[in-house]
């Protein structure tokens, strides 16, 4: 029997990057609607990306902002 999830792993990144064709997208959506495991794995991947982005952001130090402004070339 053909494994319905045979291509799910390779489709996940392109799916989340939104670079699938309309037809591939429709097929992926249809599969996700009926396969709980894939749905969870995809959802996890999406949550991970959002979480990583949110977590690693460090505000720019205030002194750096001042230093950058001081690098401007003065008008003659």
């Amino acid at each position: 029997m053909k494994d319905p999830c045979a291509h799910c792993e390779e489709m996940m990144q392109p799916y989340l990057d939104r670079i699938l064709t309309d037809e591939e997208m429709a097929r992926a959506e249809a599969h996700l609607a009926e396969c709980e495991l894939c749905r969870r794995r995809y959802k996890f991947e999406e949550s991970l990306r959002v979480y990583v982005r949110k977590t690693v952001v460090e505000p720019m130090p205030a002194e750096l902002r001042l230093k950058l402004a001081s690098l401007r070339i003065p008008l003659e």
Partner: protein
Amino acid sequence: MAHAGTVDHVDAEPEEAEAQRVATEARDRVRFEEDALALSDQVYRVARHLAGSREEAEDLVQETYARAFRSWRQFTPGTNLRAWLLRILTNLNIDRGRRQQRAPQMTPLETNDYYLYDKLAATGDGDVADEERVVERLSQDDIVSALSAVPHDFRDVLVLVDLGDFSYADAAQILDIPVGTVMSRLHRGRRILKRELAESALEETT
């Protein structure tokens, strides 16, 4: 001819034309500097994880702006200034001793894309139903150190696309590599990140 007429006019008033040119250029330069400074938060955010440490990131951003302000004439107005600044920054970063690291290793990776989720789900206390909660088991330290463990060539792409929101095409232009290479390095970088995260998350639970 209209064109010849313009030239006559310039010849007639050379000093005035020169003053006009200088004023226009000064205005363009001030606008360029202001536009570039307005992007500094976004530039720092990417630089922070392209570089190994906060100090290196600060140095890199300063060098980038110093160079950008000097060579502002090379920027084509109307094109992507953020990508232009990041291109300067990644080149400076590569110049800082990363030259030897040319061809990234492409040895097979034993983990797949689901590795981290499967590990976390297996060690959870039954709350795997909520994938967003599962993610929150990873600490900020876990993520920052996992990211810094991703080799440079993969991390550059990962940071530009996943943290900096650059398109594949912009990342390709910034790093001067083909779009296909951006995609393969991105995919691999994400897998390495997840493998590193799985390792640190498992250490904590055992």
